[in-house]
């Protein structure tokens, strides 16, 4: 019962890893964000979240095996 977390750009540098296995499955994206903020001391209020490569809102539910990506404001182009 776990999920995979991905951290990009400055988040990857701050966490020190770009992929992390999260050992349990919070009910929602919002709950996971609170846990991640507490664990790494990262403010995630301006960070988007994608579940399995689709943008997801804080009330989106999580399932075992999901990949959750933390996506800071993008700057491509």
């Amino acid at each position: 019962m776990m999920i995979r977390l991905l951290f990009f750009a400055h988040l990857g540098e701050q966490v020190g890893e770009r992929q992390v296995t999260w050992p349990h499955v919070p009910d929602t994206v919002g709950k996971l964000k609170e846990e991640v903020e507490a664990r790494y001391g990262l403010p995630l209020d301006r960070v988007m979240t994608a579940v399995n490569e689709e943008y997801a809102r804080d009330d989106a539910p999580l399932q075992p095996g999901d990949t959750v990506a933390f996506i800071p404001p993008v700057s491509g182009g």
Partner: protein
Amino acid sequence: MTESLFAITSEPISVEDVMKKVMRPEAGAVAVFAGTVREWTNGKRTLFLQYEAYVSMAEKMLAQIGAEIAEQWPGAKTAITHRIGRLEIGDIAVVIAVSSPHRAEAYEANRYAIERIKQIVPIWKKEQWEDGSAWIGDQLETKAYPSGKPEVNE
């Protein structure tokens, strides 16, 4: 170069290859946009850039932009390639090509594509200046999102 219409690559981008993906007998117009690495921004000198992407999702989001364009401008066909990794001054970071029967749609759809890329495609650039570096996107020199976050399709 990949045959896919929507691609992330770590190789230099050939503008003509991207254009050729959208050229066809029923199109009389092709609008192309190339974003290049600029040396000076607000008086600050860039030495080089580093682009990072969530590659699999970025390619999906580029394809979504192509689908949005096809819906909004029927007859328009889109191809987008974005480069990642280290880019030097003058290097091409992104090429967007849109073909359409007539020119107005090609211009409009092309511009729509670059604005959407800057909203929803998970790609980030890290500026290397003479006096330091920073990821762009959560820095003061970039625009804030009007709504605090990119628009999510719900």
